């Protein structure tokens, strides 16, 4: 997969008298947006088929005139080629940009079309934005201020339709707010391939509903809420929890799997309220699974660890890192980690391993992916371990080698970075005898018996990068502060390293880690944290093509090698 190399063919189009270059064949709505001209639209969505029903995108369209007989350009008095304007306005969303497309988006006719459509959309709409959950991110609201007339001529009774319909376990519908744009219907049919939504009744009485006996219960159901331009479809989890204009969006990456879905994490005053997909046409288009959106609940989970501990007793960070250094230096050490760590954390761990050598094993977390945006690898960053040189082999499900070494007394200390070693096959009695240092976010059987426990931060509380199944390097930003007193994992690792080296810890920022990685990690040469675009950078993964990764085909993903033991479930 390569990107950005081949120059896309450009088309010259003229918008309101000005010439622009846009990608040839791009939908006109998108093409105009790409050069900063807004064509208001409701039903059109870049990743769905064109329905052309809202009529908000009506523009005037024309082509330079040619003589029918001779094919010669027809010129006006000034010698300029005349434009043959179509007698009726046309919807922009049903056309693609091609050379010589002329459009008017500001003419009196276009203005009148928009005013008309806005007025029509509002006549049967319950104009109660103050109590509507969509207010603040509602296209109807936005466009009526931008393109509406601002007053109503409607004195008839409004239509009455069902309110608060539960379409499925996670989606609630207010039919009165629905503008019948059919985006949700098309999503279910075309993307989810699970058609459950449709309209009943006719005309202005048309009502969105589920097919008889069906529910909108797919794991992708919440995408309908994202693309609903109005407050008709709402997330049952999020609705009426928070006004959206109070929320701050932070660009992040979903850790549900190695698909690396791009997300936006919405928070206010350190609390996360929802996660929505962020468009990346190379990874997840505009979509994400419902399950990934629920991951923020882990931030405030009951079993979240917030105290540094030595032998179960609360201690300070300094005491914990000191004790960790002591244990690491007792004898032979082994490290257990996984693709849950960010690239920066994996690199920092490598630095520690270089100082205090020991075997590094990744634990595999496989799952049954859905062939879409949930891959078979339940961690976001196994490839980071390979690229940073932390590991050479793919993760293992059972820590057999480590168990043998512990049994033989060949390993004295184990450092676990968030891995439940007991679940990975090491008997608790054996672990109790070893020196166990545990860094992680949540309690588990292993952390309960660790000699040193250092709580760390979730993906929402720190910044960094992951490398997804496509070898796409993508960055995530910190959305909320972590629990008081906790530090980024990179700093913890850096402090332990400093302890071991007897040096001063540097507390490097993510860009600083990147400055060092760019020099030491060949794949990152020439990169910096700032240089990584929001949609990621595709790295060359060919060196690892022979490895039997567990991922199988998904959206925007073709496995390079045969998947590992596709039949055996771990």
């Amino acid at each position: 997969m390569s990107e950005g190399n081949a120059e896309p063919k450009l088309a010259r189009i003229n918008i309101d008298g000005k010439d622009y270059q846009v990608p040839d064949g791009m939908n006109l709505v998108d093409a105009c947006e790409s050069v900063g001209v807004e064509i208001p639209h409701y039903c059109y969505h870049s990743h769905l088929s064109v329905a052309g029903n809202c009529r908000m995108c009506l523009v005037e369209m024309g082509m330079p005139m040619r003589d029918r007989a001779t094919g010669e350009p027809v010129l006006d008095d000034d010698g300029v080629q005349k434009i043959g304007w179509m007698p009726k306005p046309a919807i922009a969303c049903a056309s693609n940009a091609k050379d010589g497309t002329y459009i008017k988006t500001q003419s009196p006719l276009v203005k009148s079309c928009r005013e008309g459509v806005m007025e029509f959309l509002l006549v049967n709409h319950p104009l109660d934005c103050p109590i509507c959950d969509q207010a603040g991110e509602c296209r109807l609201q936005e466009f009526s201020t931008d393109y509406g007339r601002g007053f109503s001529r409607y004195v008839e009774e409004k239509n009455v339709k069902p309110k608060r319909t539960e379409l499925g376990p996670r989606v609630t519908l207010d039919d009165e707010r629905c503008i019948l744009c059919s985006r949700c219907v098309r999503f279910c049919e075309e993307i989810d391939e699970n058609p459950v939504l449709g309209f009943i009744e006719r005309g202005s009485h048309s009502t969105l509903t589920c097919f008889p006996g069906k529910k909108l219960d797919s794991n992708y159901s919440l995408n309908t809420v994202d693309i609903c331009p109005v407050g008709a479809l709402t997330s049952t989890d999020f609705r009426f929890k928070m006004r959206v204009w109070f929320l701050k969006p932070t660009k992040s990456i979903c850790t549900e799997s190695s698909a690396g879905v791009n997300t936006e994490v919405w928070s206010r005053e350190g609390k996360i309220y929802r996660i929505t997909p962020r468009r990346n046409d190379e990874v997840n288009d505009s979509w994400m699974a419902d399950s990934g959106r629920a991951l923020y609940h882990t931030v405030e989970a009951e079993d979240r660890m917030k105290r540094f501990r030595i032998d179960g007793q609360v201690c300070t960070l300094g005491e914990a890192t000191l004790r960790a250094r002591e244990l690491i230096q007792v004898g032979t050490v082994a490290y257990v980690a996984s693709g849950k760590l960010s690239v920066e954390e994996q690199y920092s761990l490598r630095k520690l391993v270089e100082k205090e050598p020991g075997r590094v094993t990744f634990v595999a977390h496989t799952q049954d992916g859905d062939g879409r945006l949930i891959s078979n690898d339940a961690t976001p960053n196994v490839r980071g371990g390979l690229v940073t040189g932390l590991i050479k082999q793919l993760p293992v499900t059972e820590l057999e080698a480590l168990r043998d070494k512990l049994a033989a007394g060949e390993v004295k200390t184990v450092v676990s970075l968030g891995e439940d070693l007991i679940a990975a096959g090491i008997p608790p009695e054996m672990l109790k005898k070893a020196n166990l240092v545990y860094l992680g976010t949540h309690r588990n059987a292993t952390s309960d018996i660790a000699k040193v426990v250092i709580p760390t931060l979730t993906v929402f509380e720190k910044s960094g990068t992951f490398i997804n199944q496509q070898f796409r390097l993508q960055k995530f930003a910190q959305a909320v502060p972590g629990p008081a007193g906790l530090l980024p994992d990179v700093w913890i690792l850096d402090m332990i390293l400093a302890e071991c080296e007897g040096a001063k810890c540097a507390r490097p920022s993510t860009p600083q880690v990147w400055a060092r990685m760019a020099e030491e990690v060949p794949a990152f040469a020439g990169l910096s944290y700032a240089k990584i675009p929001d949609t990621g950078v595709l790295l060359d993964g060919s060196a690892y093509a022979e490895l039997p990764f567990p991922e199988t085909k998904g959206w925007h993903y073709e496995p390079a090698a045969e998947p590992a033991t596709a039949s055996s479930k771990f």
Partner: protein
Amino acid sequence: MAVEQRRVIYKHVDEEGYTPDIDCYMKHGGYEVLKKAIGAKPEDLCKEVLDSGVTGRGGAGFPTGMKWRFLDRKSGKPIYLICNADESEPGTFKDRQIIYQDPHQLIEGMMISAFAIQAKQAWIYIRGEFINGARILENAIEEARAKNFLGDNVLGSGFSCDIVVHRGAGAYICGEETGLIESLEGKRGYPRIKPPYFPAALGAYMCPTIVNNVETMAQVKHVIGMGGSEFAKFGVKGDPGTHIFGVSGHVQKPGYYEFEAGKITVGEMLYDVCGGPLPGRTFKALIPGGSSTKILRFGERFTGKHPNTGEDFDWGVEDIPLDAVSLKCCGTFLGTGGLIVMDDSTDMMEAIANLMAFYGHESCGQCTPCREGSLWLNKMTLRMTGGAARNQDVDLMKNIADQIEGRTICAHGEAVAWPVQSHYNKFKDEWLDKIAHQGNGNGRYNPKGYPLI
């Protein structure tokens, strides 16, 4: 000076002893044209249809031969033929007689058309309310199949095509050709956007498809029967052949009549053929071609230069020749040929409210301007006829219609807008007068005190 009817399509309609079975049809020379056609080259048949200039009878009046030329033959996909038998436009009742009384004429016309365009499969999409019509057609198809006029290897020609009758479920919009196609495919009858879904390229099941009206298909039989250039000699330039005129409303003898296009005027039709107005009444208004066409007001005059003759004309409504070209000169359309006549007992506000009740009910609801505009106009005219009209409603109605016209997915938008615009242009004074006198809230405009129908 009565003009004679020229019954071609309706030759046997209402004829004593004429039955819809195939024996009767063949006794009267049926299927001879198909036998002749099947030996000809399909391209030549298409050429005859093109040369004849015959136009579609479903309302839009588009030249049929031209439509067939638009077929995408390069795609390599099968070509389909659909006969539009959804006849639902208020005031239109012409296809019905063909279906019920002379179904084989339609089937013969369809098979000739199917052979000409080399269709792989043909359908008749018939309105749900024509229950017996559907049975009659199915029966006729079986009769024709038994005689090898359709089905496999038609008359040993190697050409195969079957006809399937598909019943609609009672929605006007399924008469719009792309809504019809969606419905035929088993989906909601939502008209498609054009571009890109022109039926001739991306029709039924995304294959090139021709949709023609029942009467158009029947006309094709006669085009091939007499030859394109011979057919073109009848009627007028731009509108050759005969038209079936369905006259309804306030005349003595409403009914269906077939005349050569342009050979009879409105006045002759209404007075001589239909027996004039009801006793003591005078004509007030005429909707010339199905309820969506623009209304004419008796007493108004139309002037201009006629494109066919190049001569100046100065006509009252009575003087307008009934052909598509002349009616267009007068700012309206021949449409489906359904003439709706209103006399001076008609309350024009009730008239528009009646039309809006229909179009508000029949909008498919897909696109915003038609969906919301038509129901708005419906609710509004209902209120207005209920005695609660406001003066400003009159201009508002016109403005709403202007916001619909030309901005919708299908021509249902125009079907809503044109009546409002034309009634406004011609009867605004009556609306305002009624509003001024609506007084007791009963609101019936009947200054002459006729018993209301």
